[in-house]
C-alpha cells in the first residue's frame, strides 16, 4: 500500500513537472500572508485581491508570450519570523516563484526581506507593512510597498496643523509600537516645520481615569492636543478628561482615532478638531472588491486594493522589462507605478499590458491610486477630516 502511494506520488510529481515545463512562459507569484495568526480573518480577502489581478492578467493573454500567472500561497503567520522565513524560502527554492506579494505584518516582512529576498535576489511587494523602520531597511532595490509608512502620516498631520495655524502642540500616544512610532513621526515633522511640541507622553489603554495624564498635558500647554490612540480604547478617555478640565478643546486625530464613536461620544464638543485617515478620491477599488467578494472572501476588510496593486505592479513591471527575472524587472516597478504615461485603473490591466507591449508608458493608478516614492513605498493619499457641526467631514484629500 505504502509503495503504491509512493509510486502514485512519484508519477504525479513527474507529470506535474512535465506539465509545468510545457509552458515556456509560466509566471509564478508567491503570496505570503498570515493565513494563521492574529490577522487570519483579513488575509483570505487580501490574497484573493492579489489573485484577482493574476487571473485578470492570465485571462488577457497579453503578459509576455501569453503566459499564465499562477499564485502560490504561503503562511507568514504575521508574528513568527522563523516560520515566515522558512515559508518564503520554500516559495523561492522549491516553488521557484518569480516574485512575492507580501508579506503582511511589518515584523515578518522585515525578516523575510533580510533573510530570504535579499540573499536570493527576489522582488517583494508588501500590501500592508506600514512600519517606518522598513523605509531604511537594506533591500538592494528589491522591496516595495503599496501602503504608506506611518512616518508619512506624521508628515501629513503636521502639514495640516501648520496650515491651520497651530504653532504648539502636546502629544498623548497609546503606549505601543503604533502609538510611539506615530507620535515620534508627528513630533519630528511638526518640529521640522517650525512648530513646538510641548510634551510627548504615553497613556495606557483601558484605564478608568485619565485626569492625571491630562493634568501633565495641560501643564505643558499647547494650541492643540494630538491624540495618537485608538477610538475604542484610551483615546476618548483622554479627550473627555481634557474637555472636562478645560485643558484643550481642539484635537488632532490620526487614523486610529477616526470612527463613528467619535461623533456619538463628543459630537460638537470637539468642533474644529482635525484628523487624517488613509484614503484617496483618485481611484475606485470597487472592481477589485466585487471580484474578491465573488470568490467568497469578506471584501469589507482593509488592504485588499493594496494587495491587488502589489500583484499588478509585479506583472506590469515584468511586461515593461519583457522578462520575468527579478533582476530585470525590479527596476521597472517605479516606472510603471508613476507618471508619465497613460493612467491605468483597476480592472484595466489588459490595456496596460498592451500599451507596454507596444513600447508605450503607463502610470498605474490601480485600486488605491498608487504613487511610489523613494525608496519604493506608497506616497500615501490621506483624507483630511474636520469635525464640523458634530460630524466628521472631509476637508480635502492630500
Amino acid at each position: 500500500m505504502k509503495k503504491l502511494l509512493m509510486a502514485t506520488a512519484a508519477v504525479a510529481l513527474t507529470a506535474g513537472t512535465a506539465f509545468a515545463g510545457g509552458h515556456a512562459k509560466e509566471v509564478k507569484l508567491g503570496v505570503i500572508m498570515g493565513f494563521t495568526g492574529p490577522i487570519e480573518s483579513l488575509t483570505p480577502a487580501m490574497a484573493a485581491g492579489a489573485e484577482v489581478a493574476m487571473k485578470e492578467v492570465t485571462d488577457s493573454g497579453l503578459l509576455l508570450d501569453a503566459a499564465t500567472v499562477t499564485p502560490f500561497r504561503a503562511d507568514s503567520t504575521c508574528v513568527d519570523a522563523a516560520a515566515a522565513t522558512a515559508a518564503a524560502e520554500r516559495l523561492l527554492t522549491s516553488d521557484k516563484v518569480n516574485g512575492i506579494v507580501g508579506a503582511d505584518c511589518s515584523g515578518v516582512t522585515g525578516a523575510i526581506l533580510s533573510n530570504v529576498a535579499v540573499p536570493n535576489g527576489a522582488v517583494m511587494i508588501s500590501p500592508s507593512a506600514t512600519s517606518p523602520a522598513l523605509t531604511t531597511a537594506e533591500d538592494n532595490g528589491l522591496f516595495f510597498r503599496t501602503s504608506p509608512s506611518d512616518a508619512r502620516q506624521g508628515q501629513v498631520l503636521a502639514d495640516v496643523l501648520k496650515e491651520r495655524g497651530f504653532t504648539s502642540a502636546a502629544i498623548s500616544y497609546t503606549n505601543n509600537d503604533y502609538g510611539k512610532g506615530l507620535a515620534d513621526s508627528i513630533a519630528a515633522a511638526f518640529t521640522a516645520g517650525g512648530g513646538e511640541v510641548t510634551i510627548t507622553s504615553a497613556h495606557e489603554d483601558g484605564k478608568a481615569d485619565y485626569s492625571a495624564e491630562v493634568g501633565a498635558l495641560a501643564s505643558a500647554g499647547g494650541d492643540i492636543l494630538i491624540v495618537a490612540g485608538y477610538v475604542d480604547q484610551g483615546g476618548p478617555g483622554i479627550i473627555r478628561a481634557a474637555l472636562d478640565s478645560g485643558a484643550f478643546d481642539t484635537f488632532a486625530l490620526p487614523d486610529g482615532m477616526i470612527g463613528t464613536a467619535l461623533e456619538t461620544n463628543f459630537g460638537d464638543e470637539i468642533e474644529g478638531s482635525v484628523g487624517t485617515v488613509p484614503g484617496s478620491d483618485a481611484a475606485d477599488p470597487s472592481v477589485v472588491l466585487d471580484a474578491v467578494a465573488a470568490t467568497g472572501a469578506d471584501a469589507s476588510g482593509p488592504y485588499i486594493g493594496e494587495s491587488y496593486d502589489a500583484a499588478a505592479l509585479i506583472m506590469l513591471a515584468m511586461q515593461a522589462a519583457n522578462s520575468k527575472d527579478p533582476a530585470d524587472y525590479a527596476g521597472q516597478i517605479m516606472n510603471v507605478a508613476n507618471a508619465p504615461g497613460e493612467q491605468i485603473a483597476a480592472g484595466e490591466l489588459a490595456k496596460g499590458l498592451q500599451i507596454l507591449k507596444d513600447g508605450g508608458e503607463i502610470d498605474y493608478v490601480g485600486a488605491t491610486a498608487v504613487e511610489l516614492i523613494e525608496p519604493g513605498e506608497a506616497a500615501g493619499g490621506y483624507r483630511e477630516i474636520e469635525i464640523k457641526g458634530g460630524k466628521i467631514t472631509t476637508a480635502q484629500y492630500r
Partner: protein
Amino acid sequence: MDFLNALVALSNFVLIPAIAYGSQLALGALGVTLIYGILRFSNFAHGDTMAFGAMIAVLVTWGLQGMGVGLGPLPTALLALPVAILGCMALVLVTDRLVYKFYREQKAKPVILVIVSMGVMFIMNGVVRFIIGPNDQKFADGERFIISAREFKQLTGLREGLAIKTTQGITVVVAVIAVVLLFWFLNRTRTGKSMRAYSDNEDLALLSGINPERVVMYTWMIVAALATVAGVLYGLDKTFKPFVYFQLLLPIFASAIVGGLGNPLGAIAGGFVIAFSEVTITYAWKKVLTYLMPEGLEPSGLVQLLSTDYKFAVSFVILLIVLLFKPTGLFKGKAV
C-alpha cells in the same frame, strides 16, 4: 492675579480630582478596614464587591432611564443606589453563608481566609463580567458640571478655568453622609457597640452575650453598603468597567494599611493621603510654578517628579514606607 491663576490651576488639576478620588478610596478602605477589624482577615474580594454593587446600580439606572424616570440635574444612579445596596448585601450574605461560614466554624487562620477571599474575588469578577460584559458602560446622566471651565473663565476673567463636575460634588457629599452615618451607627447604636466589642475582644464579647453570627451579618451588610456606594461613585465620576475595580484594590488596601488596619478614622485619612500623593507626585508643576515664580525664573521643564505611568507605584511606595517605619499605620491600627 498670577497667584489666583496658580491657585485655580492647582485646584482644577490637583485639589478637586484628589478630593473626589480620596473620598472614593476612603469609602472603599472603610469596607476593608471593617472586615479586617471585625472578621479579622484582609478581604481581597472587596474590589469586585464594589464592581458587583455598581453593576446592579448600572442595570437599575438603565431600567429607570428606559422608563423615563430621572432626577433632573442629578444622576439617575442615585435613585438606583438603594436597590444596588440591597442586591450587594444579598450577594455578600450568600457568599458568607456558602464560603466564609465554613472556615469561621473551623477557626481557620486569617491567612487561609485571605486566600479564600481571593477565590471569592475571582468568582465575583467572573460573575460581573458574565452579566454585564468586560467593556466600559455609560450610565451617568443629568447635568455634567456644577461649574465648567469655560463658565468659570467668563465669570471671573481669570486665564485659568476651574471645572467642578457634578459627580465630583456628589462624591464628596455622599461620602460625608456615609461616613457620618457609619460613625453614628458604630458609636451610638447597640448593634454598633456590640460590633466594636466583638472587634476589641471576641471572647469577652461572647461571654457578655453578644451573638457572633448577628455581628458578622451586620458587618457584611454595612460593608456591602459602603462598597456599593464607593463603586457607584467611582463609576459615575470615572467610568464603569469591571477590570478597573480589580485594579482599585491596591490603592484601597494601601489606604487602609497606611491609616491603620481596623481603624475607621485611619481608613479615611489613608484614602486622602494616597489620593493626594498619587496626584501631586505625578502632576507636572510647570504651569503653577510659571505663575508663582518671578519673571525669568520660570521652569523650562515640566517639573514632574514621576511620569503618570507610575501612578499605582506611588501607592506601593507609600505602603512600603509606612510598613517599614510605622507598621500599625498612622492611626494605630492592628499590625498586619
